[in-house]
């Protein structure tokens, strides 16, 4: 209940106080200072001098995804779009993709040192729970901006307490949120692919709160086209 009140209040605030603001990144928006302004987001279009306000994610990100017939987004969100980042227009490992499947992606410890640390979440949340996470994501973003031919699988995991099917959906939100944060830090969205594993791949098999906390995570796997 608290979450929805916070979200509604934030939405109202955004509507009334800032006409250029088009999106809310997360329920815990204040943690990351993530009020997205249309004028600050035109890097996605390529030219920083050409600015325009965007009122739907299709306007904001461009029509990157024409693979499905969408709902009328203005009807969904009342002209304020949720800042989710549409998936790249290709799936790694398929015939149409120049990026291989996950088998060729590596644990980043091997190639990128300690930058790609796991990100942890509170119960049933999909935004990170610490300022350390923000720093980690900023470092990852900087690394990826310097290595534009490095591609990342962002893997969303959950603890065992919610149901199997709900956790599969929650995992998409965790990985999707981290992907969106990295995009907002300037990473090209086509470098990032999200995966939901739900609670299928725990790293701690016990039943303590500490085990649950270890399993509520986002982990990374990377592939670099530069490395042969």
């Amino acid at each position, binding site marked *: 209940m608290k979450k929805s009140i916070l979200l509604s209040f934030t939405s109202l605030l955004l509507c009334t106080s800032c006409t250029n603001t088009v999106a809310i990144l997360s329920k815990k928006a204040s943690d990351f200072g993530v009020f997205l302004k249309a004028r600050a987001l035109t890097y996605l279009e390529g030219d920083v001098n050409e600015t325009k306000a965007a009122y739907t994610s299709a306007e904001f990100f461009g029509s990157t995804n024409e693979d499905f017939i969408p709902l009328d987004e203005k009807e969904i969100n009342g002209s304020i779009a949720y800042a989710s980042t549409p998936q790249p227009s290709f799936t790694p490992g398929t015939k149409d993709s120049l990026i291989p499947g996950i088998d060729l992606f590596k644990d980043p410890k091997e190639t990128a040192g300690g930058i790609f640390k796991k990100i942890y979440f509170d119960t049933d949340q999909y935004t990170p729970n610490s300022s350390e996470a923000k720093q980690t994501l900023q470092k990852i973003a900087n690394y990826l901006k310097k290595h534009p031919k490095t591609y990342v699988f962002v893997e969303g995991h959950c603890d065992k307490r*919610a149901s199997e099917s709900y956790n599969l959906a929650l995992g998409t939100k965790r990985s999707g949120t981290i992907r969106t944060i990295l995009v907002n830090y300037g990473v090209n969205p086509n470098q990032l692919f999200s995966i939901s594993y739900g609670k299928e791949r725990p790293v701690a098999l016990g039943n303590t709160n500490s085990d649950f906390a270890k399993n509520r995570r986002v982990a990374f796997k990377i592939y670099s086209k530069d490395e042969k």
Partner: protein
Amino acid sequence: MNRLRLNLLLLALITPLFGTEIEISLPTKDRQPTLYVATLRSSDHELENLVNYVISEDFTLDGRGKMFEKTTALLTFEKTKGEKLYSDEIWHTHKIDYVIFPNLSENKLVINLLNVRKSTIKTLSEIQLTASRDKNVHILHKASDFLMEQIYGKAGIASKRILYSFKPYRKEVDESTSSWTSEIFETDYLGIINRQITNEHSYLINPEFTRKGSRSFYYEFIYVTYKLGQPQIYLGKSDGSASVPLIKLCGNQLLPKVSFDGSFICFISDASGKSDVFIQKIDSSNQAIGKPIQVYSGTGQTSASPSLSPDNKLLAFVSDKTGDAKVYIANIEQTLVSRKPPLLERVKSTCSECTSPSFSHDGTKIVFSGKINGRRQIFLYDIKQKIAQQLTTGSEDKENPCFGSDDRHILYNTTSPTTDIFLLSIDQNKVRKLTKGSGEKHYPAIEK
């Protein structure tokens, strides 16, 4: 009672005036028929045991008839009487309504069904059994369903196949992708068959049968595979031939459910960046027609487990839009035309963390899992009366329920203390465990 007597008196007075016979039928509660399955005796003891076990257990689990206990006296009687068994008075004496007589000769099974009251015999003849136990089990289940149709007027679900995802038990945690596997398995109504039908060496979940009416031993099914990384819905064949991606959509595709007529698949995807509900039209050869259609998108919400009603007008799914995960019903008929989001009706229940709704075949009920007193139990929701009823109790957590095609059985998996598949008979309030051994057996689906 007095009024009934008065009416009968009036009828008795009027009848002679018209000189015709009037048949009065008063409503009576149908008596559960009593059944006896005679013992098959054969030189092939393995086959003999299989036939005897499958037919008896199929009828017991179906629950519409009362199984007459096989006493030593009756078994001796069966042995000595030979062909005279069919006409013997003993069945009348024991108030047995139907007797099933299986006979086996050179791998050909003949089953005679004696209707004791009418003294008629129906014969299911020349059923060719094979060298494959799994095929024989399926053939025997089909025979049981045929016999049930003769006795009750409606076939059972004994021959409906069941799919599930099996993840072997791992003692140690290993985060590497290659060591992390799960395949799709097939089982049956009694849990005799335990056949691996995929061999991808990847992680496979969420199996579903495609279009109904598959009469062959082999069939097509869909499932979710992680073999390339992002989970995608694939179409597979139980004969082991190569599987192919079914839906062209980027991102994660999860929790697919095939509509009752097999013409749609609903699923969740984050193609837009959110966890949205989509439906995909499917043709009669199980190929996708056109693009997937987004039917629900909740800002800041987690949407999961979509399921279509038999007429494909209603969509039940889970959303945490009010904080706790609840089941919602959406009428998507207009949404498909107008592209406006559907209005949602919340399924009221006493449980929390509701998940995995699934419609009954008659479209009047939804079965789902919810948490009550710290445990996940199965709930049955009556759509018209808007009442949810708790169906199960006990200390196991139960998830992913779906109806058998008779709407009298519910298939589900437990998640603690073990992860196994169970079949619940609603009428009898009895549960049968279909899987055994270590490892996780979950996400069950039953043929429509």
